[in-house]
């Protein structure tokens, strides 16, 4: 086919549609790469803000598993794990090749009445280049059924039907893993395009003209035949969460796609389900019943234990336990441990309601101190009369917040009644666990965990993991750095079952706005030692600062207690700054020395949602050279937390954590110690409480 005839074909696809332009709301759909687009090509569209998708596609001998996240209205990113089978068809060697890639896309223009949506994208921007391409794509909606996309691609997307190299030749990838910016938009550029036709809410037809020649798969490896640049397909949206696609690709292949599409902003169940709270109990008017307001109860010796018992009974229904109760005639301070409710504000609201039932009428001020790991995270002070008067008011959440103060937790009053039944407290559980190292690779097993709260702030905990099934491929580390992370395969192989952790931790409040942690023991499955941390975080501050210092020895791979295999010990430490940018965007900067002795810095950005979803990315650059680091050049990856309550609408604070890296290396590695301070306490500071403050009345 001549370039001119290809262009004609492209135009034909576009002009085949006769429809009056109109403004229409049709959000973009996902392609075989798990990115917003047509079939194999991207488009100018974006997903709805905060959409999280998990896509699996099969294209003959190629499998792609992709996680994508619309980080903001315009910016989105993907993490992809791609496998090529029959890799040895033409060239002897491994039968299977796999590659991880990271994409970034930015929508330059939102679709307007006349202007199309315009997106610029970088595909596989840091990999070894197997999938690297760049593009600009424009998409215009016609009516409410038709979308037309035209774009220009470089790299793989410029490999067929090129129209010249407007920005010069494309140099080879060197070194692999670092952002290959020298290559971006270099080399041959080629046009691509296509049409989407939405038959109805469930069915969509797509046709596209691809500019990807599949040089690697067809010419070099003989995995598939690319006979034609045209792809056709049909997609079926089963419900808001699931989308299926079936395609004819390149005149020779059949492809399937399956997408799970999640909206972290809206619970799968539509709203938080769970029992209604107890109504606020109104006090009798002082004039009517002056006796009820008498403060004489304070001096009764048995008042304290009775009040605590009654309060504990009411709070138990919400999974809240009392750490401490202190009172005077007009003020009560209760220190609570919130075991179940995912929103700090709701736990506070439920506690306040319970206090309104239990405390004598003379008590006007409720001080509620949420306690995390034995230390006070903040103090929320609510006036009882505000609680009574606002319960049924319009916009009661805003009105109550204006009258509530959130301050440093301070220390428990000296006259407070501890709970002699609370410490020591032993808890244990045996639960199934999924540990994923790639979107579709990992293991499942059982984890036996136990925690022993010795005294406030003193926690002894441990866990043992036994694998049941795994689909991980064993790998051998060739790293020239100390193998502080890359022997993970050995730890999986020999450490089954393994003692994952056995630690004694001490949490404290050395002064106002200061939080401290010291952890001692088998801190994680590869390293043991001592880890200390101090955090400065005023309750209403967007900024927090921390320092961490660790001394660790590398553990044996058998998951036991020994240190014989490695003879490796190291002091690591960081100075950290945390900043809450608002609207759920958190940034963190750590500067210090990493496990392999390398010195550098980590930057991470997370988007957190009030319901507990968390999606972020991190990158670490240290003085380890890209060659020493190995594949990937420097450490980076994506991480996410999906809370169970989002999926089920029930009260639970537990979630599912995932970390994905394009390549694991020994450079830029940090100790995985539990209960780092910032995450533990932020929920009860104003930046954690305010976004979903409305749940105080839930």
């Amino acid at each position, binding site marked *: 086919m001549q370039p001119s005839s290809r262009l004609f074909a492209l135009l034909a696809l576009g002009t085949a549609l006769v429809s009056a332009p109109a403004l229409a709301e049709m959000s973009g759909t996902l392609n075989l790469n798990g990115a917003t687009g047509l079939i194999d090509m991207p488009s100018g569209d974006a997903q709805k803000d905060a959409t999280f998708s998990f896509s699996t596609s099969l294209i003959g001998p190629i499998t792609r598993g992709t996680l994508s996240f619309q980080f903001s209205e315009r910016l989105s990113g993907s993490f992809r794990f791609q496998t090529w089978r029959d890799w040895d068809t033409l060239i002897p060697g491994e039968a299977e090749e796999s590659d991880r890639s990271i994409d970034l896309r930015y929508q330059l223009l939102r679709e307007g009445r006349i202007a199309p949506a315009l997106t610029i994208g970088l595909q596989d921007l840091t990999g070894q280049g197997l999938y690297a391409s760049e593009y600009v794509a424009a998409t215009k909606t016609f009516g409410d059924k038709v979308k037309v996309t035209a774009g220009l691609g470089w790299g793989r997307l410029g490999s067929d039907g090129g129209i010249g190299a407007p920005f010069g030749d494309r140099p080879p990838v060197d070194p692999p893993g670092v952002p290959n910016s020298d290559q971006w938009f270099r080399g041959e550029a080629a046009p691509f395009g296509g049409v989407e036709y939405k038959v109805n809410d469930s069915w969509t037809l797509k046709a596209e003209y691809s500019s990807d020649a599949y040089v690697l798969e067809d010419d070099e490896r003989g995995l598939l035949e690319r006979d034609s640049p045209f792809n056709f397909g049909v997609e079926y949206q089963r419900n808001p969460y699931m989308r299926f696609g079936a395609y004819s690709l390149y005149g020779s292949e059949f492809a399937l796609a399956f997408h799970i599409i999640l909206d972290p902003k809206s619970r799968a169940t539509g709203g*938080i389900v769970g029992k209604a709270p107890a109504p606020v109990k109104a006090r009798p008017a002082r004039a009517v019943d002056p006796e009820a307001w008498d403060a004489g109860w304070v001096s009764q010796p048995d008042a304290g234990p009775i009040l605590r018992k009654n309060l504990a009974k009411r709070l138990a229904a919400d999974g809240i336990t009392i750490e401490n109760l202190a009172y005077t005639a007009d003020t009560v301070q209760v220190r609570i441990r919130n075991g179940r409710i995912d929103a700090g504000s709701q736990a506070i609201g439920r506690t306040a309601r319970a206090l309104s039932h239990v405390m004598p009428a003379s008590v006007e001020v409720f001080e509620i101190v949420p306690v995390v790991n034995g230390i006070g995270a903040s103090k929320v002070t609510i006036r009882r009369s505000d609680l009574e008067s606002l319960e049924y008011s319009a916009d009661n959440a805003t009105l109550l917040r204006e009258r509530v103060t959130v301050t440093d937790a301070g220390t428990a009053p000296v006259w407070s009644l501890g709970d002699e039944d609370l410490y020591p407290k032993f808890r244990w559980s045996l639960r199934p666990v999924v540990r994923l190292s790639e979107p579709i690779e990992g293991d499942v097993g059982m984890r036996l965990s136990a925690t022993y709260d010795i005294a406030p702030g003193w926690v002894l905990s441990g866990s043992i993991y036994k694998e049941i099934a795994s689909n991980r491929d064993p790998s051998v580390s060739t790293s020239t750095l100390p193998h502080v992370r890359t022997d993970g395969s050995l730890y999986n192989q020999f450490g089954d079952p393994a003692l994952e952790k056995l630690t004694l931790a001490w949490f404290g409040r050395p002064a106002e706005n200061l939080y401290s942690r010291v952890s001692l023991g088998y801190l994680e499955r590869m390293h043991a030692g001592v880890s200390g941390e101090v955090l400065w975080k005023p309750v209403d501050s967007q900024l927090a600062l921390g320092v961490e210092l660790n001394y660790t020895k590398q553990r044996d791979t058998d998951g036991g207690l020994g240190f014989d295999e490695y003879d490796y010990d190291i002091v690591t430490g960081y100075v950290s700054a945390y900043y809450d940018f608002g609207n759920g965007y958190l940034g963190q900067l750590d500067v210090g020395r990493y496990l392999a002795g390398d010195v550098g810095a980590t930057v991470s950005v997370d988007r957190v949602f009030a*319901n507990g979803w968390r999606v972020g990315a991190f990158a670490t650059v240290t003085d380890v050279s890209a060659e020493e680091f190995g594949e990937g050049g420097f450490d980076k990856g994506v991480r996410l937390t999906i809370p169970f309550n989002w999926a089920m609408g029930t009260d639970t604070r537990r979630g599912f954590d995932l970390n994905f890296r394009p390549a694991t290396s020994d450079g830029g590695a940090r100790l995985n110690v539990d209960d780092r301070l910032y995450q533990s306490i932020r929920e009860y500071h104003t930046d954690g409480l305010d976004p979903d403050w409305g749940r105080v009345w839930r």
Partner: protein
Amino acid sequence: MKHLKRALAGLAVLALLAGCGNDKTPNPMAAAVGAVAKTGMAQLKGKKAGAAPAAQAASPQDLRAELARAGQPVLLVSSKALGQTGFLTVSDSKGGVLTWATPDGATFSQRDGVLIQTRGLGFDLMSAQVPSVAQLRQVGTPYQRVYFFLGPDDQGTRRTYDCVTSMAGNESIEVLGHTHATTHITESCTRSSGGGKLTNEFWIEGPMIRQSRQWVSGGLGHIDFARVID
């Protein structure tokens, strides 16, 4: 495909496993595997609004007599979205607000019969600025109605409507075997920005709302209320 099969096999293993321990936090892992696919409505449909199913067959008069024997006010609530009908009793009464509760812990709070809050239904109405009965009777006089919800990501959201009532006429209605002479008033509301309309229907008997059909939230739509026992 091999990877996928193994991953699926792993999930299946998980689904079969249930955790144990004395840690009372719920064990959602096994449930989570299947629960994601279900939508909220399915879950909500499982809720019982505290109906007396055996009594359905009985005559309205017998049922009313049985309800009256308890000697407390009863509200009949029925929701199409929840697929439930039930008789509710008062769990809280203060300052003109009655809160009606189902046995499984969902509540409806009404100020003089006008709905101002729900809890435990999922798509709850968190609070509302509503007209009084006197306002409803002032046909043709416009006023504002504001609904407050927990929107996406549990952030507080509001919907403001400009409303006006109109007289639909005097109607004789039957509530569980009793006939009531009521004034039927229709409240028509238009969203102040962004469009959107809704209507509420009230059947007012003297100073009280005998029966109503009131909008609750986007997820629940309208719910019917009838005051059976005063």
